[in-house]
């Protein structure tokens, strides 16, 4: 049972001749963690907006092909500060904003908000004013706010951009634990080195088309390394002139070395 099914999707933003996405097909099932990888402007953010049901409904534009859904999606944008409600003066209220808009009863809201605060490790910030938070704290509050809406598909666009290494690791841990519970996660990140331990599937986007889909071992393939999109370890192995297949991670490299 798919959470999301993109079938031969082509998408044009309003008043643009060239499509941002071309003939993209992708299925996401519950428990999947799918990562989009590509250069800036390759179409990852557009694909995520379509997955979240915001394109073309809110962005405008034209979509050809079909998009099938088996559940509710929630998206965290790469600019989380724009997702702040502007109407909440405590972090708790900010996280509750989404669930309240969905019309849930108060005890449901409380349950989901408390759980989300706990999972993002921001319970100590619950009574702080969102306007006083740092970029990293705010990013986590927004992720909590989307999580509290209990989406079946969580869409994350550069979720660790504002975070320090510890914060980033906490987010990847969260992603794995959510998938373990049966949620699906679709994400785009430039932190390729984190992906082997996080993603089940990698989608390589280039100029709006899918160039390849595969397991994380894709990140150690020659073509990806050449494009500068492989993991650092794989790239290093290749640059050293050592033979393929290149190791994906430091752990792989150690095994290969022995």
């Amino acid at each position, binding site marked *: 049972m798919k959470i999301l099914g993109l079938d031969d999707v082509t998408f044009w933003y309003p008043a643009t001749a060239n499509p941002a996405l071309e003939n993209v097909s992708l299925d996401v099932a519950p428990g999947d963690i799918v990562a989009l990888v590509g250069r800036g402007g390759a179409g990852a953010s557009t694909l995520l907006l379509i997955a979240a049901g915001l394109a073309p409904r809110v962005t405008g534009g034209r979509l050809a092909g079909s998009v099938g859904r088996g559940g509710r999606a929630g998206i965290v944008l790469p600019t989380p500060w724009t997702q702040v409600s502007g109407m909440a003066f405590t972090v708790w209220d900010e996280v509750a904003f989404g669930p309240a808009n969905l019309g849930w009863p108060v005890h449901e809201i409380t349950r989901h908000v408390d759980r989300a605060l706990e999972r993002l490790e921001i319970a100590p910030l619950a009574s702080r004013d969102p306007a006083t938070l740092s970029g990293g704290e705010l990013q986590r509050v927004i992720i909590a706010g989307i999580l509290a*809406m209990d989406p079946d598909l969580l869409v994350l666009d550069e979720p660790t951009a504002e975070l320090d290494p510890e914060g980033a690791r906490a987010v990847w841990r969260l992603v794995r634990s959510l998938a373990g519970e049966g949620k699906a996660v679709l994400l785009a990140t430039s932190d390729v080195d984190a992906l082997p331990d996080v993603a089940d599937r990698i989608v390589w986007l280039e100029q709006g088309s899918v160039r390849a889909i595969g397991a994380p071992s894709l990140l150690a393939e020659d073509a990806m390394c050449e494009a500068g999109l492989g993991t650092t370890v794989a790239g290093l192995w290749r640059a050293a002139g050592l033979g393929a297949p290149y190791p994906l991670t430091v752990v792989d490299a150690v095994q290969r070395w022995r």
Partner: protein
Amino acid sequence: MSALHPFSLLAIAAALPAFAWILPAPGGALATALVALGLTLTPGAGPGSTAGWSTPGRRPGFVTFRTALVSAAPFWLFLLLLHDVPTMVRMGLRITTMVASFVWLVAALSPDRLVEAMVARRWSLAMAYLFAATLSAVPILRARARRIVEAQRCRGLSPRGSVANRLRALRALALPLVLSALHEVDERTLALETRGLGTGVRRTPLAAPLDRTAERAGRWALLLLCLAALIWRLA
């Protein structure tokens, strides 16, 4: 002031200018102007307003009071240039009432309490948000303006000096603010959709502000008083 229901705050902020225009000037207008300015001196507004007042050691009331005076001043100047003194005083007091009431309202009204109040009354969320967004834009824009000022100063922009210099400075400060704010409008619409707005579902009130019977009665009384004054004036 912060304990009052948001609708009461709106009622007062609407009634004062109404009285200013209905009652005979200059006495009536002076009275309402003084009341409005007096309100700007009352301490604190909702829980969020302190986020905007970052200068330590100054009571929030003074900042609001100053903002009201500074906003009203240009109107007095124009009136002085265009009219004789009695007209200037009459209109100036009325405009001061309007400006001071609005400035006080922005300081005293928390967007979240307003939205909660509207939701509890089953008003459309879109309209509630329109009010709230206008009010909450102020601290966001103020924070961003400060960041932009800092960035431009670090590039050598001096906000002091000759008039030409200051005008150039203004452009370097105002343009990025407006451009980035406008640019963000599209993003903001999208972003708020992600938080569940626009689904058409009725929002759950989380903490509807208390609406005491006395306040409700007070609001009706204000309305009746306005109407009575209007009738008396026209008769």
